[in-house]
């Protein structure tokens, strides 16, 4: 084998209509085989109703070094969570 098959990331939508979730990766020569292989490797027990495969090389990821710059700003904004606002016990449905 002279040429290594590209790596594909696999995303599965589970039975209950939730978003596709990353489950792992695999090698395949093309998208069609990637779907076939993903079926065998990641859905042997009824794990899903839909498969996405994406070439790993096409994924752009944030860098661990940027963690602070990206995620720090939301740390100070606790008021974005409903629990920030205490509600009197006698007030219902809020």
């Amino acid at each position, binding site marked *: *084998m002279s*040429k*290594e*098959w590209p*790596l594909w990331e696999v995303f599965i939508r589970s039975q209950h209509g939730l978003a596709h979730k990353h489950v*792992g*990766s*695999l*090698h395949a*020569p*093309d998208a069609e*085989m990637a779907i076939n292989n993903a079926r*065998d*490797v990641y859905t*042997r*027990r009824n794990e899903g109703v839909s498969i996405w495969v994406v070439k790993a090389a096409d994924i752009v*990821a944030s*860098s*661990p070094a940027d963690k602070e710059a990206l995620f720090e700003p939301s740390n100070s904004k606790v008021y974005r969570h409903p629990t920030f606002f205490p509600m009197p016990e006698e007030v219902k449905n809020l």
Partner: protein
Amino acid sequence: MYAQMVDTGLKQVQSHADMSDEEQAFQARIDAGVKIEPKDWMPEAYRRTLVRQISQHAHSEIVGQLPEGNWVTRAPTLKRKSILLAKIQDEAGHGLYLYSAAETLGVSRDELLDALHAGKAKYSSIFNYPTLTWADIGAIGWLVDGAAIINQVPLCRCSFGPYARAMIRVCKEEAFHARQGYDIMMKLAGGTPEQKAMAQDALNRWWWPSLMMFGPSDAESVNSAQSAAWRIKLFSNDELRQRMVDQTVPQAEFLGLAIPDPDLKWNEERGHYDFGAIDWDEFYNVLKGNGPCNRERLRTRVKAYEDGEWFREALVAHAEKQAATQAAA
């Protein structure tokens, strides 16, 4: 275990003073229970050790299909055959999850396979024993997969994210393997005297190799101590082996089978079973390539890979042709 005696390349456990600032920050993250992800900075020795450990684990899953493959065409019923096929397919899947985890550390799949096929990479000693009767398929599920579960459940909490996530998937499926094995043993142990004798014979042959799977005592091992500090090894070989003995003895009693160890005895004081000495010469001999099936396993594996080459090439030719047609359109 599935990865036995993994070398860290270090002569002594790194002390805090020996560590660079980066290494200290890395160790602090591990100590705080933070998962290390592929793109995070990591010491080269951590990376190399994990490549060894995860690829050895992956190779074990792949080679582990071979002893069981021996019985696919001779399973006693169609149902047993379907179950065995499903289990073997799981083993292939486990190998693939693990190869993927290893690849996140910067090695390629083909490199890993080449190392296995060239006989340079290790896999677990246990898969170099033959499966002589149908009862061996029961004993493998019960004992070998049982031992694997004991080793792998803690690894679901190991420090390297992709390895931990692969282990979670593997463990979910492994429970089926152990149960189907015990189910075979129950059927045989409750059958005719000949069937029960067959089950006993399988237990006699698989008991000690299963205990050897955990590897020799590593209480004094630098490699194990370093791996423990890195949280890629969470319990000592002796602790895991004791767990195996303690949980398996009552299971054997239920089957009415005798564990082939005259020294096996409940120790009230320790709250554990005492058991006899393990023949580590046999273990090292198997590791060196002189077990009953080492050569045959490697030969079968290489043949399967070479026989599939025309098909892999055809898939690539098809993919290239499709891509060219699409580009032209």
